[in-house]
């Protein structure tokens, strides 16, 4: 349970990091290099992974919406 949450949050932090580095390259490279775009592509990829992993975790009963366990 807690581990699944941690994994979800870790992936989210990864997304934030890739978005942040995209911002950094946006300024640093004046949009000339491909680094901004590469970072943004990473952030999209990670987002899709996160989205799917939520479903997978739910399917295996690892997380519940709002952390409330079903009755019983």
């Amino acid at each position, binding site marked *: 349970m807690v581990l699944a949450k941690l994994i*979800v949050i870790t992936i989210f932090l990864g*997304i934030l990091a890739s978005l942040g580095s995209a*911002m950094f390259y946006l*300024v640093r490279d004046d949009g000339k290099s491909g680094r901004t775009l590469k970072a943004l592509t990473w952030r999209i990829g990670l987002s899709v992974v996160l989205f799917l992993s939520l479903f997978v975790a739910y399917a295996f009963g690892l997380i519940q919406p*709002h952390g409330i366990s079903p009755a019983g």
Partner: protein
Amino acid sequence: MEHSSDRYYIPHGSPWPIVGSVALLFLMAGFAATLNGSGIGKISMLIGAGILLFMLFGWFGIVIKESVDGIYNQQVDRSFRMGMAWFIASEVMFFAAFFGALFYARQLALPWLGGDGNNFFTNFLLWPGFENAWPSNGPAEIGGEYKAMGPWGLPALNTAILLSSGVTITIAHHAVKAGNRKMLVAFLGLTWILGLLFVGLQATEYMHAYHDIEHGGLSLRLSSGIYGSTFFMLTGFHGLHVTLGAIMLIVIWFRTLKGHFSPENHFGFEAVAWYWHFVDVVWLGLFIFVYWL
């Protein structure tokens, strides 16, 4: 387009900022008067909104014109980039305040009300019988009975939509760099359509939430305690940003149709694309922390 000045362009004086200030004076004073129950407040707000629109057209109009005329050199372009990046940083901090409120309520305020830590008597004397749980509308059950918004259905669909729009804007981004205008127009168009679709579905979700439980809704409102407050303020401000982002995408799309962006010079596009990635990531944060965990 070819000419790029080697001097940093300093505009010669501009009427637009002061017009914007007047607009905000009317808008803010009008809104405040409306909240105080004054009838003329709404008129003042309308005037303010009108002037603000006028200002936005005028200000962005002149900047776009100057950009197309090639007055901006590399260094000006970089100023705009940095300005946009730090503007988004400030937006991140604005959302952080509301996320902070959510975490504070869930991790501290509600457990304390439930008697956690050294708050036994808070619970025993003030709110006997209250147990910490999430979602919650608090020990006084402000707003009455409600149901929580689950992550399935519309929210999951909306996440898929917004993620797809992130993919399409990235493809458009590749296209603008490759100078592939057809692809750029197609995928940029797709992006704003997906954006508007998101806003529309979000509105549907809100209506569903606001309907009474007896009528098949959730009875979930802004006034449904801390859960309703955080839910609607976070998703609401996000929705506002998506709406603004979609409008910006549409503007950029029309500029693309007019042939504005080149593989070398496309700051306007990148600024909006970056903003779009930002609202997209905020949504992911919302989806995780508001709908799921």
